[in-house]
């Protein structure tokens, strides 16, 4: 009986199959490697845009931090600039007030501080959902902004924080006018932040986050203390956002209140929606598109560039619900068959 025979064969291979399938879900693809090689292109072909690309890398890292909570765990936030700004100010104050301009320890201290605040805030975050959650994140963001504004003796208020001086990286790479060091530094931080995030989303913890996003109500019934998962990812996200903020300070030697602004919180969500949530590269692509568009459109008309962002946002939301990258990967899958 050949039918029976194939059935037995199928069963024996089937045991190995789900594990292989799961491994396939997290395997590196050619596109990923190509992307990271392509990230080096600006060094050689767009040396006059290196400062812009440095900003893009920083925005991308910030967007990844938001993707971890929004795209993977389903925590919608409109106040994540809070952690970006905290990181930016800590890095700035370390240098301006304490005279410590060493960049790498600066990043670590800034990230740790943002993470600490994130951990404390997370106790509040996991208690609310839906609209209330958005309002709480928004409120916390506004609160932090006004706090920094009123503490002008420390932050410089609306004048910005002056006197930041970032030392050479590892005592060797000096921050140059062209932005070679800035972009290299930002790109390295983005890569490290990305690799860490990639590991997180492909872990059993990452699976638990997707479970929360898919069906929060079922989580306790499979024995999950899922609030701890949420608090953990919120804290991790705050650390990464804080590091991104500190990068901005260190590459520009200046901090303004804008780092804490609602605009920044909203922009990062827009980047994420453009690129596509829950896929990490969507965050990077979104940051790239958003900032390139802003740069080019502001060159044409400095006042109305947001019009085009708004238009693109609507096109994406209406016609590509999974974002631009989501649409691209669907196309690749279709033609790959």
């Amino acid at each position: 009986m050949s039918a029976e025979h194939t059935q037995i064969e199928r069963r024996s291979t089937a045991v190995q199959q789900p594990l292989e399938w799961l491994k396939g879900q997290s395997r590196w693809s050619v596109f990923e490697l190509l992307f990271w090689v392509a990230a080096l292109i600006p060094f050689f072909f767009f040396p006059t845009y290196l400062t812009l690309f440095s900003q893009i890398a920083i925005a991308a890292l910030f967007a990844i931090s938001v993707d971890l909570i929004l795209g993977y765990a389903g925590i919608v936030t409109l106040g994540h600039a809070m952690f970006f700004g905290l990181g930016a100010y800590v890095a700035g104050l370390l240098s301006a007030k304490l005279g410590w301009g060493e960049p790498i320890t600066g990043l670590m201290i800034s990230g740790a501080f943002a993470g600490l605040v994130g951990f404390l805030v997370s106790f509040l975050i996991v208690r609310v959902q839906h609209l209330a959650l958005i309002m709480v994140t928004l409120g916390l963001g506004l609160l932090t902004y006004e706090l920094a504004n009123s503490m002008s003796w420390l932050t410089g208020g609306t004048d910005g924080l002056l006197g930041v001086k970032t030392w050479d990286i590892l005592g060797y790479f000096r921050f140059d006018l062209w932005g070679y060091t800035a972009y290299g530094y930002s790109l390295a931080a983005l890569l490290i932040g990305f690799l860490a995030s990639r590991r997180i989303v492909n872990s059993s913890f990452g699976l638990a986050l997707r479970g929360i996003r898919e069906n929060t109500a079922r989580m306790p019934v499979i024995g999950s203390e899922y609030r701890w998962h949420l608090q953990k990812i919120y804290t991790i996200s705050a650390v990464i956002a804080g590091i991104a903020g500190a990068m901005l300070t260190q590459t520009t030697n200046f901090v303004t209140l804008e780092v804490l602004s609602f605009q920044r919180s909203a922009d990062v969500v827009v980047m994420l929606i453009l690129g596509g949530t829950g896929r990490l590269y969507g965050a990077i692509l979104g940051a790239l598109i958003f900032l390139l568009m802003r740069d080019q459109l502001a060159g044409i008309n400095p006042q109305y560039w947001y019009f085009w962002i708004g238009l693109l946002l609507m096109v994406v939301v209406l016609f590509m619900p999974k974002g631009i990258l989501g649409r691209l990967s669907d196309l690749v899958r279709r033609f790959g068959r």
Partner: protein
Amino acid sequence: MTTGDSVLRTEAVCKNFGSLQVARDVSISLPRGARHALIGPNGAGKTTLINLITGQTKPDSGRILLHDEDVTAVATAGRVRRGLTRTFQINTLFPALTPIEAVTLAVAERKQQAGQFWRSLTDHKETVEESFETLQQLGLGNVATSETRTLAYGQQRLLEIALALATKPKVLLLDEPAAGVPKDESAMLFEVVAALPDDISVLFIEHDMNIVFKFATRIIVLVSGGVLLEAEPEVVRSDPRVREVYLGNAHHG
């Protein structure tokens, strides 16, 4: 109230929704290896009782004991970790996850691995293998890597049970496991339930009396939030009050 060999016990559990009494002094007990059915007309409070036992609803008074430990104040997740698990009448699954992912998540939670963000999921090889065995046991091996939302309805019902089994329950509460499943398939579903290891105590809600009499060793009849009768199937079958409740309900409904 029965003696120490009961795995799960409720003591005079009461719950009101406004002026509606949904649980009135409910005291039931499940011995080790039980296959008990919970029956009663619509609105009798069967699902509410399961919610009360698993902690999704808090009782106004009374106690819930698991292995003689008072768990009334323990949250649902804590009760699941102590071996008290349920399934849902309406599929409560993870639509975009595949069965292998969903069950692996449940197993990982049980093994306290779900918080580990530094290790790749596939490093937990035994967890994945155990999940796959559970899926195979329920005949879901060949759809393990298809998204849950694409599964046939009957397969989703089985996945409900698979998720519960992944928590290694000592007590399993099945809320109409065959709800919405065609009759011939629902018998198959209950064969799965009947084949569960003897050390799992099962309480199931079911409307099909043929299935109830076939699979239950004891039947609890719930009416208007209170236990009308708890007895062997033969006793329940011939009890005039039970007949009245069901026939009366049919007349009015």
